[in-house]
């Protein structure tokens, strides 16, 4: 992967399922706690609207998409905008790696869901470090 200055983190906007909440929480872990200065949260709603600044951000930096379900809105939207997808992740795939972390709750995730979000964030952190040419792993909260 080529070196980048900043990475876009694009969670899905899932509202009806716990996996969507996991994708969002993982994105917050990454952009607020782990990589606040070298990652940027990109909301899909602005891309739906065709917001110029958001489109430019997507074109300027590689994106890591985190989708809550198989419909993969985040991956498709970044693709539609012509952005470069450094990695596309689906929460269900990460859950398969951690079957003990079964998420439930949408408005408020259960503890297992929060752990799954953390595991997902760790995975993304490693990709960001690699992409930015940094050594070391994630910076757990």
């Amino acid at each position: 992967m080529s070196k980048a200055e900043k990475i876009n983190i694009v969670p899905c906007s899932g509202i009806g399922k716990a996996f969507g909440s996991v994708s969002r929480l993982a994105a917050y872990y990454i952009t607020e706690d782990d990589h606040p200065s070298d990652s940027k949260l990109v909301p899909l709603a602005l891309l739906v609207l065709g917001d110029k600044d958001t489109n430019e951000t997507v074109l300027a930096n590689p994106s890591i998409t985190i989708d809550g379900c198989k419909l993969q809105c985040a991956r498709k939207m970044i693709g539609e905008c012509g952005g470069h997808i450094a990695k596309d992740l689906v929460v269900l795939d990460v859950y398969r790696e951690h079957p003990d972390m079964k998420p439930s709750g949408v408005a408020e995730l259960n503890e297992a869901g929060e752990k799954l979000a953390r595991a997902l964030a760790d995975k993304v952190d490693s990709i960001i470090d690699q992409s930015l040419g940094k050594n070391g792993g994630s910076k757990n909260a």
Partner: protein
Amino acid sequence: MPELPPKKVGIVTCSGEELPEGTVTRLAALRVLEQLRPKETVTICLPLFLAGGEGDRAFAKFYPTIAIDGCEKRCAYYGTAKHSNEPAASLIITDLVKKHGLAKPEGLRKLNESGRQVVEIAANEMAAQVDSLLGKSWNRSKGQLDQSNDNDQVEEATAITCSCGSGIPIQKVVIKGQEITFIGLPLIFATFQEQKKEPSDKTLDEIMEMVKIYNRIEPIDEPDVRPGIQKEYEEYFRKNGK
């Protein structure tokens, strides 16, 4: 009658992940969908209007929709209007905060007191809008409220919280060399086939009456539409047995 989705109100949130007001939209919508009006409401993720199929894009035409936005950019409202259909009602969180003299909501993951207050206010306003919209007649072929107050559609006590991926069943039919999308056609065909109604002029008349409930067909276009629908139903009836 075909078992098409019952009369409900669609809720579309901006979900704006980068703003606390976006979190407010999500939590307020969930409060309505799960607690206040679970049987009367349904939702869809906003990006599905672009990332999904035509069935998803038919959502706001099929259901009268409330768009709930975090800020004045109104992504949910304009996104829905642009890619699906004009929402029947809307709410903007920053307006509600101002109107009720609340402090700015804070906390993307966990809202502050002001954020929690506006969640309740927005949820209650939405519930009132749902009641109001259900009391009016929604024309699914035009995708707008009827002028009259007749409400002849039957509600069904089935809770559907998330419509992602389920979409509205659609079918494309070639009419005079042009591909036209018809909402609900697969279910209409299925119902007529189950009733063992063989393709005929009489059956076609009945099918067309049903098709026109869910699709806008100008009288001048109907003679062109009928042969296309007839052909598709003959094909459907042949494939699915008699």
